[in-house]
């Protein structure tokens, strides 16, 4: 039956979920956009339903005379056909089935961007009506148009916006949104109208709505701030204003489907340009030739000191709780600090507010996890999401390590658990309170070599955090986060011991104020206060480039037992300006103070973007320069003879690049970088003849990155990333410049995942990385106190191991059984079982050598996932 007067439905044409593929397609770009040609007021027109049927009222529900409401998300292609139907809000199995059946046959006039039809997604709401009884029908009510205006970036209500309703060129009515962004009218006769939304500081938005007698048309319009290059950007929630030269965003689907990562979000970052390969199980993030631990990870703005579980098998925040992960390889905003290289900024997703309970369970080779989500009973407006995960690595690693001479005293296991509740206390604010924790433990006593002994690794953290976002006015918004966490890190390996307990309080706040439609000022603070107790015993080590002195028990140890406090407050201010439509300049300064060293670090930074050729295939030039500091690490402080003498290592980062939109889905990004490092902390013999930490190290990193990315659509996502770089260090005045031990000149990643239909998805990843550097041993000298030979070193980092290359494959199959989604996947790591060398191994007296591998052999990981 063609839709007619009897059909009652509320239609939510939500511009924000228009696929508008470039918006998603340009995830690597800083400014998701539809096209430059839409930068003016034309914006995006929504799809129009032109043909459809009313669903049959299920016979099974006739007796109860239920009138439930269903909300669907419809994917519409450029021809207006419905390509996918997802139930957002269920009306019950029978009603859902009836509605889905007809919705698949709907025909739309497709959405347009300018003149061009584009793919789109709409929310479609329908209320079932019980069949009429044998009474005279009441006269139908007049048509009603009701809706909300929201800010696209934050989904927060937009108050004071003008809603102008036109018939042709004639202005019929003007409404103003209330404090919750809502508006409605029943004063219009049936017909089709143009609706235009205007608000100061936002790009206007237009749509056409058809009002029918007896129907209420519900809409939600999301407006984009004018600073976004003035482009009427169709955005998804979570997309943030551009404040960096390069932001690489990985969507939730890409995070969970990247081959070789076992669906782990943070391991997926290792596929981005500029990210070096680290040995398997090391769980480090090495970015643009910098040292590890130079790229901190933030979750909703809060620093997570340990993001990986034991050995880097999995990250401590489950992918299912993340909305997206942004990776900034350099030249990031002053919002972030205490980092010499890049930043990873992950965002937890909002809980689903559909009034229903959801659950998820997953089991694979590494771990098992469960998750639940839904409204909190008795707490109106509050929703929760909670999860628990436990590894079962112990099931196979314990038998592997168990032997006559190794006593496994605690299995290598990890847990993590999360409980998050959120609400919107007012239409203009959002509040989330989260409880996150993890616990990793392993303990064994190995006596099968001279340098063995107790092996113990324990890492645990338990924290409570909250985030509060509020729109104070159309020009002003604020965000406040605070957390308190207690963490325990313990590592024992023979004679080496490190044990630290810290209670960290971290709070951040940011206030954004729109000075003019083309200038926004952001100011904020960032304070870390962490009292700690630490004991450590470490063998003395040689200077950074000094010959090997051997290791193990027979090298004298230094030890500390120290109580201290890390107090590192920071403030920042940043001005984002759009002097002209194609230009964006973000400049800011950050001031960090270190209580330990009583030093102040001032970090001015600036980034700029310029659209050389606007339009659907726009070309953007981008550049950035700035100073970045990272405070000395805990061990530097503990073992320094005077921590106050240690300055923060500094990096002067410079980058220049270009982005080219090639097609609706394909974007090419090229970027060069040149970083100068100084005040690096190294160990050298001081004037007293003592090995001591000093800031005598310097460095230079130069390189380029290429990324060709096909943004995710219904069929495919993937990218090719390539990095060419060189990283050098000098360990003191007058000393030669040497290659940094993590220098990897060439890194190539080719990754793609294709949806084959019928729930099948096939992904593959190939990586090629230049071999690791090593310092050759020219021979050995026997140390009788160690009963072993010590390497007589050749030139530092002068040799390379054979290159690394590896192919990973992932196969997913999804089933839909009623309300339940069932997924099975097989993640095969190192398909052709390449023995990738990690180090050069030598025999006892350094007369023989051969490459040795610590990387994964061929590992098939089978997993199953159930979700409802």
């Amino acid at each position, binding site marked *: 039956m063609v839709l007619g007067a009897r059909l009652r439905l509320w239609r939510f044409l939500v511009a924000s979920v228009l696929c508008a593929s470039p918006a998603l397609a340009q995830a690597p770009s800083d400014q998701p956009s539809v096209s430059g040609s839409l930068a003016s007021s034309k914006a995006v027109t929504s799809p129009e339903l032109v043909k459809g049927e009313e669903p049959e009222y299920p016979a099974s529900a006739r007796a109860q005379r239920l009138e439930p409401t269903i909300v669907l998300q419809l994917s519409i292609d450029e021809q207006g056909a419905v390509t996918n139907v997802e139930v957002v809000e269920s009306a019950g199995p029978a009603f859902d089935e009836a509605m889905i059946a007809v919705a698949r046959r709907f025909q739309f006039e497709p959405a347009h961007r300018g003149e061009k039809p584009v793919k789109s997604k709409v929310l479609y709401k329908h209320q079932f009506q019980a069949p009429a009884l044998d009474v005279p029908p009441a006269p139908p009510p007049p048509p009603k148009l009701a809706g909300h205006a929201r800010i696209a970036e934050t989904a927060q209500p937009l108050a004071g916006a003008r809603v102008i309703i036109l018939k042709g060129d004639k202005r019929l009515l003007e409404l103003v949104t209330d404090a919750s962004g809502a508006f409605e009218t029943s004063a219009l006769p049936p017909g089709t109208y143009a609706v235009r939304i205007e608000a100061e500081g936002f790009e206007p938005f237009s749509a056409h709505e058809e009002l029918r007698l007896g129907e209420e048309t519900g809409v939600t319009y999301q407006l984009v701030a004018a600073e976004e290059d003035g482009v009427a950007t169709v955005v998804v929630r979570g997309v943030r204003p551009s404040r960096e030269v390069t932001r690489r965003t990985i969507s939730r689907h890409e995070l969970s489907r990247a081959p070789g990562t076992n669906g782990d979000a943070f391991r997926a970052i290792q596929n981005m340009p500029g990210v070096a390969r680290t040995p398997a199980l090391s769980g480090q993030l090495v970015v643009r030739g910098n040292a590890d631990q130079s790229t901190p990870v933030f979750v909703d703005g809060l620093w997570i000191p340990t993001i990986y579980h034991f050995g880097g098998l999995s990250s401590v925040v489950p992918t299912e709780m993340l909305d997206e992960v942004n990776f900034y390889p350099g030249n990031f905003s002053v919002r972030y600090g205490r980092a010499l290289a890049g930043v990873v900024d992950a965002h937890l997703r909002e809980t689903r507010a559909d009034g229903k309970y959801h659950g998820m369970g997953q089991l694979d080779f590494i771990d098992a996890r469960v998750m639940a989500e839904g409204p909190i009973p008795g707490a109106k407006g509050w929703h929760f999401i909670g999860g628990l995960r436990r590894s079962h690595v112990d099931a196979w690693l314990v038998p592997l390590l168990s032997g006559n001479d190794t006593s496994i005293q605690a299995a290598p296991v990890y847990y993590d658990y999360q409980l998050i509740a959120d609400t919107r206390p007012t239409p203009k604010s959002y509040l989330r309170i989260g409880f996150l924790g993890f616990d990793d433990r392993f303990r064994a006593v190995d006596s*099968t070599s001279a340098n063995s*002994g107790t092996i113990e*690794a324990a890492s645990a953290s338990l924290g409570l955090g909250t985030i509060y976002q509020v729109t104070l006015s159309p020009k002003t918004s604020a965000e406040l986060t605070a957390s308190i966490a207690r963490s325990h890190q313990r590592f024992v390996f023979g*004679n080496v011991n490190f044990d630290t307990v810290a209670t960290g309080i971290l709070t951040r706040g940011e206030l954004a104020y729109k000075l003019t439609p083309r200038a926004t000022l952001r100011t904020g603070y960032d304070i870390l206060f962490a009292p700690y107790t630490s004991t450590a015993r470490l063998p003395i080590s040689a200077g950074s480039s000094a010959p090997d002195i051997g290791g193990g028990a027979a090298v004298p140890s230094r*030890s500390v037992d120290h109580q201290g406090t890390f107090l590192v407050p920071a403030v920042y201010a940043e001005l984002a300006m759009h002097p002209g439509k194609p230009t964006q300049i973000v400049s800011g300064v950050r001031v960090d103070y270190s209580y330990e060293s009583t030093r102040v670090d001032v970090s001015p930074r600036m980034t700029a973007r310029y659209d050389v050729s606007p339009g659907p295939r726009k070309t953007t030039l981008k550049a950035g320069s700035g100073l970045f500091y990272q405070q000395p690490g805990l*061990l530097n402080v503990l073992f320094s003879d005077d921590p106050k003498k240690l300055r923060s290592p500094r990096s002067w980062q410079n980058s220049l690049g270009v982005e080219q939109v090639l097609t609706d889905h394909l974007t090419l990004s090229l970027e060069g970088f040149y970083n100068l490092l100084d005040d690096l902390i190294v160990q050298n013999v001081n004037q007293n*003849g003592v*090995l001591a930490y000093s800031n005598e190290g310097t460095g230079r990193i130069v390189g380029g990155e290429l990324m060709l990315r096909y943004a995710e659509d219904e069929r495919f996502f993937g990218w090719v990333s390539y990095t060419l770089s060189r990283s050098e260090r000098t360990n003191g005045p007058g000393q030669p410049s040497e290659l940094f031990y993590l220098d990897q000149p060439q890194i190539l990643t080719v990754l793609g995942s294709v949806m084959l239909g019928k729930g099948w998805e096939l992904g593959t990843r190939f990586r090629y990385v230049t071999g690791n550097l090593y310092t050759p041993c020219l021979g050995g000298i*026997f140390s*009788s106190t160690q009963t072993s030979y010590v390497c007589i070193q050749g030139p530092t980092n002068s040799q390379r191991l054979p290159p690394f290359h590896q192919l990973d494959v992932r196969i997913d199959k999804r089933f839909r059984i009623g309300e339940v989604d069932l997924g099975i996947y097989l993640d095969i790591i190192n398909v052709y079982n390449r023995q990738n060398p990690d180090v050069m191994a030598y025999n006892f007296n350094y007369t023989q050598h051969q490459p040795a591998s610590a990387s994964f052999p061929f590992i098939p990981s089978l997993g199953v996932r159930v979700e409802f």
Partner: protein
Amino acid sequence: MRDARLLPKLLPLVFALGCGNDFTAPSAIGGLRVLAVQQGNGTIMPGSKVKLSMLLADNRIIGRAEGEPAPELNVVWLAGCNNPPGRQYFACLPVLRELAAGLGDGSAPAGTAGKLGTGTEFEVSIPDDILTTAPLVPHDPIHYGVSYVFFVACAGIPGFDPSITEGIPVTCTAPDGKAVGTSGMVVGFTTLYTYDGAANLNPILTALDFDGEEMPATLVDRPATSCTVDEDCAPKAGQSHKHPRICTLDTRTCAPVLNACSSGDDCPEVRVTPRIDTASVERYTDGYEVIWASYYATSGAMKEDARLVVDRTAGLTGDPTTLWKIPDKRGTSRFWVTVNDQRGGATWGFFDVALE
């Protein structure tokens, strides 16, 4: 890789690299090796004289015929490096270079404060000011001075080569004028710690067991009972030996007799166990002094080349036995076990096994 922050990352690497390789095992004595150096009784005081004793292993002398002359073997000591910058041995190289120049006439060159010596024993003098000239280093649990004594063990004639600028500028030349390779030359050093007021004792090895039986082993302070004929090795009345024993030709000590095995991986394994006086285990305020045992043999393969005896955290680790796989090679096989602690303490023992 020396940054302490990297240490936790080495843990997975330790596991991963535990896999096999094709290297010669350190326990396999295939030539001339220095196995240990004992530093007097262990405790070193400022101004004291310390007797250094070297344990050498040389498979050329094992099982040689009676009356056969001993092969060429020379040991040279070079002392005179105290409290080098950073306490590191390579900071001694300038001093060592000066000393090595005197290898030709066997005495330290004029003007150098060092001392040269020869033979497997050498006496070194610790300076009176070894502690006062040692820099005070933050985070040292105890103040101490460091002395390095270098040595060269050479199956030929040791010499000085000024053209060697990387490493130790010494050479070893065979009587025929050819350079002796690494199988006949060992360059090394021993580190002497002078602790401020702290005792530092050698670990004590009381016996060596082979296949569960105490061997007539030669220990540092207790030579094995000598024999002249096989009957001297017969069990005493009321005793029995798991393996019959014979009197070896070169050392004239009793050795158990086992059958050589040609079954490769299926050959039986025999337990080799050092017995250590647990009273010699020294404690710190935060744990134990680490002690480990190293095993060597001229034939056969050890399951572990070394075993930890005392863990820094857990103390005694249990039975420090290793397993020796019986080889196909007939003749005398010598076993050495050295026991060391983490402050330079050392002791050892050795015995022979006859394979028929």
